[in-house]
């Protein structure tokens, strides 16, 4: 079977090389049939990648430890669901997943868009082929999952921290996001190469971009939830380089999803949009590079391997080729209209874009700084959480404000008076809320207070928009309020889906501010019978238990919790120590959620002493559960915005058929 896997990868490589070279030649020379065969080769490469992937999955599920990769990432007693996900537990499998997803969605995007952008497609195929060539080349030459070894008695097992439901979904979602950003990149570059730079490539890729962006966003939040519950340090986001690696392309693609609306409506920001697409793609590659190269001190950098140079080379190549192509097509990308006012919807989108990209670039600077400083001074220098927190506040707060203001500003030109009338109600609600918070003692953190106030402004503005729209639909003859609401959202899914996503971000901001600015931490060493107080909770150590189950020893501190003097049950926090040699212990935190306040009591059994005492670290994290709620709302909004809309398609088709194709002068 390893032979079949290797052969499938070599065939896949040959097919994508053909798609890239023959497709490129066909595009330059206008050979349609050759172009079709290149496209078919791309589709066939998916079948080859799928074959290779099935071989690897088969090896994991049947504990075929002759595969070095399986022996290093699985063991005979690994539960089936984790044997399935151990596929991407290491570098080789992750790269194969990249290749599989890329050839799958690349083929699907090419096949589904062959009518809309038939004149751009001859270039899309070779670009997708070239990207796939890189990954398959690395898989075949440097980092094959099909290397074999004399069969050991048992495998090394899967990292215990990856044996978690969140880790089943988190890595593939991030990969779907990273790989998904290849689609808008390939179409944008193909539009430039073919000189068909009208708005059709945006229409062709909008849902693909939205889907990739949604996967990245949900993937980041799932990772945060995993870190919160499993890593158990009391926080949810630590500005780790690998967390940042996913955040950067998400921020840039967020900017892109906003600025495409300006291009669609006004024909502006055309250069900017192709720059954003190229930047998002390069950052997605950079993200994979950071995760897999181990160049930085990061708890994630367990894959200290030799593929770093390959990735760096490919990122430089992709960036250089994109820049060259964009520069060579600048004359074709001139805006058809100019911005008329700094107070307009398009200006609001521009501000939003600048803040998002500035934030992404400052994060990039922070992540790359150790490498830059080592190259220049010979000593790595790192920036910590204060650096990122500063920029998250400096760029984040204006972004939240813009999220509330933007949808209320008219396109083209808005008078300050009309804007004032639109903003008055949500602003009054937010200010009243902010004043209330000051009296409630939230003024200790000015940034937190402003964050809360802006987030409430956004939520109030969104509720008002929904209310106004629903009222208008009802006035137009809808029979009931729910019908009016459904009709409102159904008729403009993109807009109202976007509002729902805005509401999710506002919830996330409230949750992040809650845990970031207003959490309480206490550390105490308790002997049985002793108690500690944190905010309005009292925790009394009832005793310590030491249970041996199947493959581990479970040490637990059992604590009786009272809140405001009322008994509130028990929690158990501690550690699991695994018997298998080499297995690392795991931190088993106790989390007690107050759903009404969205607050967590978070208890870490940090150290179990020989005298029976326990070092406990206790957090009260206010509003933290709004972060997870935001994930569901975010997904809902994205699905609404992505949902196929025949009316919108007809509108776009009508408009685009009238749009003059921009050809070479």
């Amino acid at each position: 079977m390893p032979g079949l896997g290797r052969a499938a990868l070599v065939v896949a490589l040959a097919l994508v090389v053909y798609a890239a070279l023959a497709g490129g030649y066909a595009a330059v020379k206008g050979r349609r049939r050759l172009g079709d065969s290149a496209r078919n080769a791309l589709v066939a490469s998916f079948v080859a990648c799928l074959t290779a992937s099935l071989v690897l999955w088969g090896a994991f599920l049947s504990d075929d430890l002759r595969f070095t990769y399986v022996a290093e990432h699985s063991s005979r007693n690994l539960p089936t669901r984790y044997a399935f996900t151990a596929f991407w537990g290491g570098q080789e499998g992750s790269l194969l997943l990249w290749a599989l997803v890329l050839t799958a969605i690349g083929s699907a995007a090419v096949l589904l868009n062959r009518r809309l952008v038939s004149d751009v497609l001859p270039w899309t195929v070779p670009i997708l082929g070239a990207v796939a060539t890189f990954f398959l080349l690395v898989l075949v030459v440097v980092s094959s999952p099909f290397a074999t070894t004399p069969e050991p008695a048992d495998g090394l097992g899967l990292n215990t921290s990856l044996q978690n439901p969140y880790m089943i979904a988190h890595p593939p979602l991030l990969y779907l996001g990273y790989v998904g950003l290849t689609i808008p990149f390939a179409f944008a570059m193909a539009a430039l190469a073919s000189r068909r730079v009208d708005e059709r490539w945006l229409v062709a890729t909008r849902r693909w971009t939205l889907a990739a962006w949604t996967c990245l966003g949900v993937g980041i939040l799932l990772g945060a939830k995993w870190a919160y519950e499993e890593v158990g340090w009391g926080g949810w986001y630590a500005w780790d380089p690998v967390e940042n690696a996913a955040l950067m392309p998400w921020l840039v693609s967020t900017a892109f999803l906003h600025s495409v609306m300006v291009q669609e409506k006004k024909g502006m920001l055309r250069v900017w949009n192709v720059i954003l697409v190229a930047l998002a793609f390069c950052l997605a590659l950079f993200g994979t590079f950071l995760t897999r190269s181990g160049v930085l001190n990061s708890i994630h950098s367990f894959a200290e391997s030799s593929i770093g140079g390959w990735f760096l080379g490919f990122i430089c190549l992709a960036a250089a080729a994109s820049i060259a192509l964009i520069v060579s097509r600048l004359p074709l990308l001139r805006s058809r209209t100019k911005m008329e006012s700094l107070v307009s919807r398009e200006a609001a989108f521009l501000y939003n874009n600048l803040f998002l990209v500035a934030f992404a670039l400052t994060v990039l600077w922070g992540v790359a700084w150790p490498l830059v400083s080592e190259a220049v001074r010979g000593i790595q220098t790192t920036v910590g959480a204060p650096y990122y927190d500063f920029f998250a506040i400096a760029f984040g707060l204006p972004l939240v404000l813009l999220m509330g203001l933007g949808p209320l500003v008219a396109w083209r030109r808005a008078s300050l008076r009309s804007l004032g009338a639109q903003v008055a109600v949500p602003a009054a609600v937010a200010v009243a809320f902010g004043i209330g918070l000051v009296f409630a003692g939230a003024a200790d953190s000015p940034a937190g207070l402003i964050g809360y106030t802006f987030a409430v402004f956004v939520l109030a503005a969104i509720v008002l928009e929904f209310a106004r729209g629903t009222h208008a639909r009802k006035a137009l003859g809808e029979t009931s309020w729910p019908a009016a609401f459904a009709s409102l959202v159904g008729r403009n899914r993109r807009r109202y889906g976007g509002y729902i996503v805005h509401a999710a971000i506002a919830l996330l901001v409230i949750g992040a501010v809650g845990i970031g600015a207003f959490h309480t931490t206490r550390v105490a060493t308790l002997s049985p019978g002793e108690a500690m107080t944190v905010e309005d909770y009292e925790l009394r150590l009832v005793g310590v238990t030491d249970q041996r189950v199947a493959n581990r020893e479970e040490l637990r501190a059992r604590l009786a919790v009272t809140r405001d003097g009322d008994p509130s049950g028990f929690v158990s926090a501690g550690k699991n120590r695994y018997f298998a040699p080499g297995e690392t212990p795991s931190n088993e935190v106790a989390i007690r959620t107050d759903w009404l306040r969205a607050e967590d009591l978070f208890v870490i059994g940090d150290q179990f002493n020989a005298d029976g005492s326990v070092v406990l670290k206790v957090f009260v994290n206010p509003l933290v559960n709004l972060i997870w709620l935001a994930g569901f709302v975010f997904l809902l909004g994205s699905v609404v915005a992505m949902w196929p809309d025949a009316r919108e398609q007809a509108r776009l088709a009508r408009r685009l058929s009238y749009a003059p194709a921009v050809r070479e002068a």
Partner: protein
Amino acid sequence: MASRRIPVRLVVALSVAAALAVFLLYTSFAGGATDSLRPSQLLAGNYAGKEVQLAGIVKGPLAGDPHAGGLRFTLKDFDGPQKVEVVYMGSVPDLFAAERHVYLRGTLENGTFVGEEDSLVTKCPSKYAPKADGEPT
């Protein structure tokens, strides 16, 4: 009112300038970055009393209590014999053990590296990915 065209480039340039100003403001007030060193670099340079990040391999014996008096161990260069004594207070990651790759923030005081509370981070053990030759950074 006559319509006045706003050049996008001007807005972009002004915004970039504003962002740079914020950046300068930050570096002026909040200070710069922290050097990330190996034991040999820490001992060779003039770092006494300066906050740095130290990375290396944990060598035993591990002694003391991280919550009372401090956990004591030695950190060794990844690729050399140089070592430095470390004393650390705060939470110890689950993966912490002798021979693990760790990093922590702190200052060099009288030849001993005094770790900052809760700054100790352990890299995942290399059993999950065979190390390439050379030094992991």
